[in-house]
C-alpha cells in the first residue's frame, strides 16, 4: 500500500508531547473508537499563549503522527494563531499523508480547535474567531468525517 512519509513515521515512532496536563485549561476530544480514531488534546494557556499542548490518541499511524505534529505546531502560539492551523497545514508539516488518510485520520487540527473552544467556553468568552473559521470551512467540526 502507499506508505507514510519519513516525517510521518518519525512522529509515529517518537510521538511528542504524549499524555495529559494537570488541571488543563481546555480539553478537546474528537473521533470515535468505532470508526477507528479517537483523539484528545489538552492545553495550558497563559496570557493567550499555548504554553503546553499534550495529546492521547487511539488510532492508526496517521492519527498518531498528526496528533504529535499538531502539539509541536501549536505550542508557543497564541490562541488566534492556533485556530488558524488547518488539517492541510498538519499534513504538509508531515510531508504529506496517503490520500485515504487525508480525511479519516487527519483530525488533529479539529481536536486542537475543540480544546481551544473548550478553553473559551470555560472563560465565558465568545468564539468569534472559531465560528468565523468554521464558516470559512477551515474547521470541519468536531466529529470524525469518516462514514
Amino acid at each position, binding site marked *: 500500500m502507499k506508505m507514510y512519509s519519513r516525517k510521518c513515521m518519525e512522529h509515529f515512532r517518537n510521538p511528542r508531547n504524549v499524555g495529559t496536563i494537570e488541571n488543563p485549561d481546555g480539553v478537546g476530544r474528537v473521533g470515535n473508537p468505532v470508526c477507528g480514531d479517537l483523539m484528545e488534546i489538552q492545553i495550558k494557556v497563559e496570557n493567550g499563549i499555548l504554553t503546553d499542548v499534550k495529546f492521547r490518541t487511539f488510532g492508526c499511524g496517521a492519527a498518531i503522527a498528526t496528533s504529535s505534529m499538531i502539539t509541536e505546531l501549536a505550542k508557543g502560539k497564541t490562541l488566534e494563531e492556533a485556530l488558524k492551523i488547518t488539517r492541510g497545514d498538519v499534513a504538509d508539516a508531515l510531508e504529506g499523508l496517503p490520500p*485515504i488518510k487525508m480525511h479519516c485520520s487527519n483530525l488533529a487540527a479539529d481536536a486542537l480547535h475543540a480544546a481551544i473552544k473548550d478553553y473559551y467556553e470555560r472563560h465565558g468568552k465568545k468564539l468569534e474567531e472559531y465560528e468565523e473559521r468554521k464558516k470559512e470551512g477551515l474547521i470541519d467540526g468536531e466529529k470524525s468525517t469518516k462514514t
Partner: protein
Amino acid sequence: MDYASSSPVDPRVIEAMLPYFSEKHGNPSSVHQIGRESFEAIEDSRRKIASLINAERPDELIFTSGATESINLAIKGLAFRRLDKGKHIVTSKIEHISTMNALKFLSTKGFKITYLPVDEFGFVDPVALNDAITRETILISISYANGEVGTIQNVGEIGKIARDQGVTFHVDAVAAIGKLSIDVRKDGIDLLSFSSNDLYGPKGVGALFIRKGTKIEPIIHGGGQERGLRSGSENLPGIVGFGKAAEIAKKEMEVETSRLTELRDKLIKGILKKTENVWLNGHPTKRLPNNANFRFKFIEGESLVLRLSDFGIASATSSACTSKTLEPSHVLLAMGIPAADAQGSLLLTMGRWTQNEDVEYVIDNVPLAVDFLRKLSPLIPQGDV
C-alpha cells in the same frame, strides 16, 4: 508472520518451472514434439493437483488465473447454468471478498442470496443452512476455513446436506489448501476453488475442481482451452509450478501441519499470557494450523502492524484503517465482536519457513508494541497500562 497475504515460492517449485520459460515453451495445443511435451506437463500437474484433493479424475480440474477467477467461475458459471432451476444461493456472512462481490453482482441480476450468520467462533450452523434451502436453491458456497480467524467449517456435514437436498456445493479452499487434508469425495464437494500461491507455488495460477456431472457455463470465451470452460493459452510455467507445489504439499502436509500446530499453540499461549486485555479471535482448536488472530483492547490495529514492522515483524490487521472500505472486518463483526474492539485485531499467519525462534521473538515483542500504543491511548486511565 504474514503468510496469509502472500507466500514465497518454494525453491523446488522454481527449479521445476525454469525450463518451461525457455526450451520447453511449446503450446500444448500444437501437435509437434515440444507442443506435445507441454501438453504432457500440464496433464502431469493436473494429476498431482487432483491427487492432493482426492478428486476421482484429473480432468475434473480446470486451470485458471487464480482463486478469485476460480470463485467467479464457480459461482457465476453455476448460476448462469442453472437458471432453469432457480435463482437462490446460500452462503455465510464471513466469506472472502471474492465470493461476496461475485454474489453481490448476481444479486443485481435478480439472484436472491441468503447470508447465514455465524456463532462467536465463526461457525456456520448446518441446521440453519439446511433450513435456508428452498426449491429455488441452486448453490451453497462456504469456505473450507476462514483465512482471517482460522475457523474450520464442518464441511463434511454441509456437503451431506447439499447432497441430500440436491444442491450444488462450492467450497472456497484458499485458506485451507495444503494445510488441511481436503477430500472432495468424502466431503461431498462439487466445486472447489484454490490457488497455487497458497501452496508455495507461483502467483497467477489457480484451479477449479468441477465434479464430473456438475455443469457450469464459462465466463471467459475464446479458443476453447480447458474443455471450453476457460479459454486462453495455458500459463505453462505457472501450471508446472502449481503441480510441483501440490506434489510437495501432499508429501509434507502431515509433518508440516503438526509442526505448525505446535508453533501456533505456543504463539497463542505466549501472547495471551504476556499481555492484558487480549482475546483470541476464532476457535482455540478448530482453526487453521498456521493462524493466530487476536484482538487487543484500547489500541488500533494499523498502528500495531506499523509498530511490529519496526521490530521486523510482518503482520496484518482487519481494522478499518487498512481496508479500502474503511470498515472493520465483516468477519469479526459477524462473530458479534463490537466494532471498536474489532479495530484492535492482529492477524499472525505462519508458514513453511517459520521457525520456533521466530515465534519466540514475536511473543517477546508484541507486548512491547502493545504497551507503546496503550501509553498513547485515551481509552484507558493514565498509568493503568
